[in-house]
C-alpha cells in the first residue's frame, strides 16, 4: 500500500482479518505528526523490547517517531530501580537527596533532549519531573506499565505533582491506576507476536530444552518465568499452584535469572522444598555488560530529527531480558534443588561452563 508498511506487512499472518489494512489507514491520518518516546533505558525490559519494533514501524508508516533515552550519572540506575520498587509498594529507602538527584537528572534531560513533538510519551518512573521543565509544545503522556495502586505513600506524594502536570497518564489495567487529577487512560500491555521470545516452539525443540533442564514432562506444566523478586510474586504463584493441584495433577516450574539482593529466592526454594513437583530453575543472566549500556546512553540513543529512520531495527547487541530466547539456547540453565542455593553462581554472575548443577 503506497510502498509503506513493509514491516507491518509481516504481521498479516498473525493479525486478525483486516486489521493491518486498517492500521495503514489510521497511519495515513497521522502522517506528518511527530512522536517522541522517552525511556530511562534502551536495553532490557518489555517497554524497550517493544519500542525496538514499534519505532521503526511507525517511521515506515510516515509517522515520525523518535526514541530518546535519559542520560544519568552512575547512581541514576540505582535511584530509578529504588523508585520503581517503591512505586510498586515494596518498602524502599528513597531519601530526599535521591529524589533531588532524580529531579535534577530529569530536568537536565528535558533541556537536552529534542522533545518538541505532537506527542511525547514518557515511560517508567524516572521522568515524571521532565514535564515541568520542557517546552509546552504538543501533548505529554506518562506511560506507567506496572501496578501503581499501592505505592509507598511518601514517595508517591513527592512524585505525584509532577505526574499531574502531564496531559494524561496511561496505565496497563484499571486496577493499576493511582488517583490523579489529570486524565487517566488504559491501554492493555502488548507483546510482539513475531519476536523470538513469543514464537511458536515445535514439540521437538520443547522436549530438548526440557530434557536439558531436567524437567520431567509426565504431567502438564505450570510455568512462571521472571526474576525471583517480590514484585513477580513467585510465592503467590506457588500458592496458586497448590490450589490448582487440588484438582489437576500438574508440575510447577519457576524459572528466573540469578537472584540479586533483596530477592525472595530463598523463600521460594523453601516453599518449593516439600513438593517434588515444584522445580526452581536459575537461568544464566542475559548478557548486558554495564559498559555497553552506558555507552548506549552516552550516544543519547538513537535518532535525530534529521534521520528519522535510523532507529535500530535489529535487536540490541546485548541485553534483551529474555531468559528463554537468549539464555536457553546458548547458556546452560541451572537447576536449583530446594534447599541448595548455588551461592557461587550468584556471586560470580558469570555463565556456567557446564549444564545443570543441583
Amino acid at each position, binding site marked *: 500500500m503506497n510502498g509503506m508498511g513493509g514491516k507491518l506487512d509481516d504481521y498479516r499472518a498473525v493479525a*486478525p482479518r*483486516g486489521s493491518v*489494512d*486498517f492500521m495503514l489507514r489510521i497511519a495515513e491520518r497521522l502522517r506528518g505528526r511527530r512522536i517522541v518516546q522517552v525511556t530511562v533505558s534502551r536495553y532490557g525490559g518489555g517497554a524497550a523490547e517493544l519500542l525496538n519494533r514499534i519505532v521503526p514501524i511507525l517511521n515506515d508508516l510516515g509517522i515520525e517517531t523518535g526514541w530518546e533515552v535519559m542520560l544519568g550519572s552512575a547512581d541514576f540506575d540505582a535511584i530509578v530501580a529504588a523508585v520503581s520498587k517503591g512505586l510498586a509498594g515494596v518498602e524502599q529507602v528513597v531519601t530526599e537527596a535521591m529524589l533531588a538527584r532524580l529531579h535534577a537528572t530529569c530536568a537536565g534531560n528535558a533541556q537536552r533532549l529534542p522533545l518538541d513533538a505532537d506527542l511525547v510519551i514518557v515511560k517508567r518512573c524516572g521522568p515524571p519531573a521532565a514535564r515541568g521543565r520542557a517546552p509546552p509544545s504538543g501533548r505529554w503522556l506518562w506511560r506507567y506499565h506496572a501496578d501503581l495502586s499501592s505505592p509507598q505513600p511518601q514517595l508517591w506524594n513527592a512524585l505525584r505533582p509532577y505526574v499531574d502536570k502531564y496531559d494524561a497518564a496511561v496505565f496497563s489495567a484499571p*486496577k493499576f*491506576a493511582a488517583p490523579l487529577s489529570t486524565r*487517566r487512560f488504559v491501554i492493555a500491555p502488548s507483546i510482539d507476536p513475531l519476536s523470538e521470545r513469543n514464537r511458536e516452539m515445535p514439540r521437538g525443540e520443547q522436549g530438548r530444552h526440557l530434557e536439558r533442564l531436567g524437567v520431567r514432562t509426565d504431567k502438564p506444566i505450570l510455568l512462571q518465568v521472571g526474576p525471583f523478586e517480590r514484585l513477580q510474586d513467585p510465592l503467590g504463584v506457588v500458592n496458586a499452584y497448590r490450589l490448582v493441584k487440588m484438582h489437576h495433577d500438574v508440575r510447577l516450574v519457576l524459572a528466573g535469572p540469578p537472584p540479586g539482593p533483596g530477592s525472595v529466592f530463598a523463600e521460594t526454594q523453601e516453599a518449593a522444598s516439600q513438593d517434588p513437583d515444584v522445580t526452581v530453575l536459575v537461568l544464566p543472566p542475559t548478557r548486558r555488560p554495564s559498559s555497553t549500556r552506558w555507552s548506549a546512553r552516552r550516544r543519547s540513543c538513537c535518532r535525530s530529527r534529521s534521520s528519522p529512520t535510523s532507529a535500530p531495527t535489529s535487536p540490541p547487541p546485548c541485553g534483551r531480558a529474555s531468559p528463554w530466547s537468549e539464555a536457553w539456547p546458548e547458556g546452560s540453565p541451572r537447576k536449583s534443588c530446594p534447599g541448595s542455593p548455588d551461592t557461587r553462581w550468584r556471586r560470580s554472575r558469570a555463565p556456567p561452563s557446564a549444564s545443570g548443577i543441583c
Partner: protein
Amino acid sequence: MPAADRFVFQGCVQVCELLPHEAHDARELLEEIRRVPAESIFCHTSVLLVHRPPEPDAYPNDFALWADIELRDRRLTERLAAVDPFRLGSIEGVRAELVSTLEHHLQQLAAAPTRAGEPFRFLQYHLVPVPTGHEVGTLREFRDALTGVDASTLFFHIIEARYRLGRGRGDFAEWIDTALGRHELAERLSHIDPYAGTLERVRERHLIALNRALEEEGGA
C-alpha cells in the same frame, strides 16, 4: 450510483478512559450506574464486544462479570447478565434496566450488600471513526468489502450507529434498504443480534444472508 448513495465503510479506534467512579458493593454500583455518562454504560455493555474473548460462555457485560467474581453473588450475576441491549434498543434503556435490576435485588437483600474484594472501576470509551478505504455501490461490492474489513467496522456500523448514535436499524440495514431498495434483506440483517457471540460471528451471519440474497438474484 450517485456518490451520496454509496456506502463508505468506517472502522473505529477505541480509547479507554478511566473515570473517577468506583463501586464496592451492589448499592454503590446502583448509585454509580445512575450517575456515570451514557458512554460508560455503553462501554461496559457493548464496547467489550470488540475485545471479547472467544469463550462462548463469557458474561455479556462487565457488571455481571464483576458480580460473579468479586461479589460471588450468583443471583445478581444472572440478573445482570440477562440485561439485553439488543432488546432494549438504546443505552438509556440499558441503564434503566440495570437500575431496576439492582433496585429489585437490593430490596430483596436481608443483610447489607457484600463488599467486593476489588471495586468496579468505571471506564469510558472514546470512539474515533476512521474510513477503511472501502466504498461500495452494489450489493456484491458490499459483500466483498464486508469479508475483509477490520472487526471494528462491524462494531461501528452495527452497534455504535444503532445504539449510541440512534441510527435506526444500523448502517448496513439502512443503506441496503434505502440505497438498494432491498427491504426484505435489510429486515433480515436488522434481526441479527450483534450481542450474541463475537463480531466475527456477526460478520459470518451477515455474509450468509448476503450470499443467499446474491444467489437468489442470479449467482454469487
